[in-house]
């Protein structure tokens, strides 16, 4: 599928392997958050299939050379899902899986929100929602000026698209015709607190979808973007959409991939529940998750 550069072996991972990796990644998220006693669950889990596909199939990267100048760039604009990114980076070889135990701890490279000054491999520091696309835009502009051929991917939350700064970037990216900039929106139908759904109103649980009443794709198209809508848990579809985005890098239109996902995906009791935005699993819950995710051993055992 993807014409990834030869030196990125992980890009040969099979689709079935991606699913296994995603299951492992989800468990690492739940365990790491339980270990540190704080963090987010819902967003990292909804984004997990996207992150695994990106890091194992799409991105042209060298985990052993994180500052490789020609690497693709990836920015997690929804920085509160940091632990999801860290889990995948660990699986991909950026650092030992064991280091996940330092998540959120003092002096750790694995800060609650991604901190590029601490962890090599991060292309931006995020945490204040709405900012990542601007940085990606700057990187994409710089790549053009430098004549570098890499692609820049930025992942946003659906709630995050309420931030005005996102729409500044949307407009300016289109004005500069940055076809080599791709936004991936994790459309998991929930944000942190959200708007309570009115009785009978469609929503996820008792919360209205952040995009209810909004046609996000139409808005992006109106601002000059290409829009692809996919199932954000279908690895094949994810890779295909990212390849499509890369293939149209010369088209002078940035691409937005709207990925339909389920918040808390992969564990029955976290799926679609806004309360799990940032809850910490009890030991029992972590064990239950492990069983559901079909994983036998606790990496901390």
């Amino acid at each position, binding site marked *: 599928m993807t014409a990834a550069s030869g030196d990125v072996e992980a890009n040969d991972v099979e689709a079935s392997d991606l699913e296994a990796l995603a299951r492992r990644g989800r468990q690492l998220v739940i365990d790491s958050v339980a270990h540190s006693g704080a*963090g987010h669950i819902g967003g990292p889990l909804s984004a997990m299939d996207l992150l695994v596909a990106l890091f194992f199939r799409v991105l042209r990267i060298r985990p052993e050379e994180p500052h490789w100048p020609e690497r693709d760039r990836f920015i997690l604009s929804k920085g509160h899902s940091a632990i999801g990114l860290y889990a995948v980076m660990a699986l991909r070889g950026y650092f030992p899986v064991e280091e996940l135990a330092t998540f959120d701890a003092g002096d750790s490279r694995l800060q609650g929100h991604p*901190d590029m000054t601490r962890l090599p491999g991060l292309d931006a520091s995020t945490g*204040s929602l709405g900012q990542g696309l601007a940085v990606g835009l700057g990187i994409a502009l710089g790549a053009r000026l430098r004549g570098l051929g890499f692609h820049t991917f930025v992942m946003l939350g659906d709630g995050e698209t309420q931030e005005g700064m996102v729409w500044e970037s949307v407009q300016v990216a289109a004005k500069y015709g940055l076809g080599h900039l791709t936004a991936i929106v994790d459309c998991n139908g929930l944000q942190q607190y959200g708007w309570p759904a009115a009785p009978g109103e469609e929503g996820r649980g008792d919360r209205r979808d952040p995009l209810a009443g909004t046609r996000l794709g139409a808005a992006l198209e109106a601002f000059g973007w290409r829009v692809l809508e996919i199932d954000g848990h279908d690895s094949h579809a994810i890779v295909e959409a990212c390849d499509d985005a890369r293939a149209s890098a010369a088209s002078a239109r940035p691409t937005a991939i709207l990925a339909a996902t389920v918040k808390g995906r992969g564990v029955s009791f976290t799926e679609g529940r806004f309360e799990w935005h940032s809850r910490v699993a009890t030991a029992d819950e972590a064990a239950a998750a492990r069983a559901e995710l079909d994983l036998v051993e606790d990496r901390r055992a």
Partner: protein
Amino acid sequence: MTTAMRDAWAQTLIDLAGDNPDLLVLDGDLGTSTRADRFAAAWPDRFLQMGIAEQNMVGVAAGLATLGYIPWLSSFAVFLTHRAVDPVRMLVAQTHANVKIGAAYTGLLTGFTGKTHQDVEDLAIMRAMPGMTVIAPGDATECAAAVRWATATQGPVYLRLARDAGPDLFDGSYVFEPGRVIPLRAGSDVLLVSTGPQTARCLEAAEMLATSGFSAGVLHVPCLKPVDAAAILAAARGVRLVVTVEEHTILGGVGGLVAEILTEHEPRQLVRIGIADTWGESASNAFLLDRHGLSATRVAERVARELAGVGSSAGAAS
């Protein structure tokens, strides 16, 4: 048992809403963290969810205020004092709008969120903004009193809320008065001037200093603007050394305030303890307080060291 300020903030608003039909709460999608969700449960029609769009939220509050409403904003402090500070300045402070800023998760102790979320500059920023009343309560009781006062008083108010519960400083008889500074402990060697939840740590430090033979007073400054400068000067007169202690940068906050007051009226030495012009990080509260010298132990150590230094010049200072 101690209550967190955010709990007191929400409960007080719930209580006030009955008698005050103009009181509204606007949330920037953080109600589950700021406790605005409790207000929403109690008063669903008076709760306005504004989503992850803090700038708009501030403008909406300014608009509501023109119709006589008293909007309380709720978000993490940093998203109000940074992301949305432009509308706070132009639409709230410059128009003297009756908007109340409930700034949650201030200082270093923000539940492992890290440097992006740790607002350690808010007092400097809000103090520099003309027309803004700046309050940093020391405990839940004072917080509740400040909420009552702010709700009853025309004009913009910034309220700095701590995330986690700390020791109680005040009892139910407490009345908030803007500008008032509150002597919580008398002492003859050193006066610790503090604000917010750091005051409780200063009281603890004063205890520790006492066991080392130093007599430390504690002056609590719950309101940085306006402030009773004369009362600060009066409290400072009796001691060998004045020290400010704050869970905030040492540039422009309580330390800056007291430095400005002292040099204006009764110049004397000041030691400013606080975050030394650096960022925080994700870590436990204990780690962060220790790292930045703000735990009771670290404050006591530092003050003892400073007292040793000024011992000789004590006469000149008073």
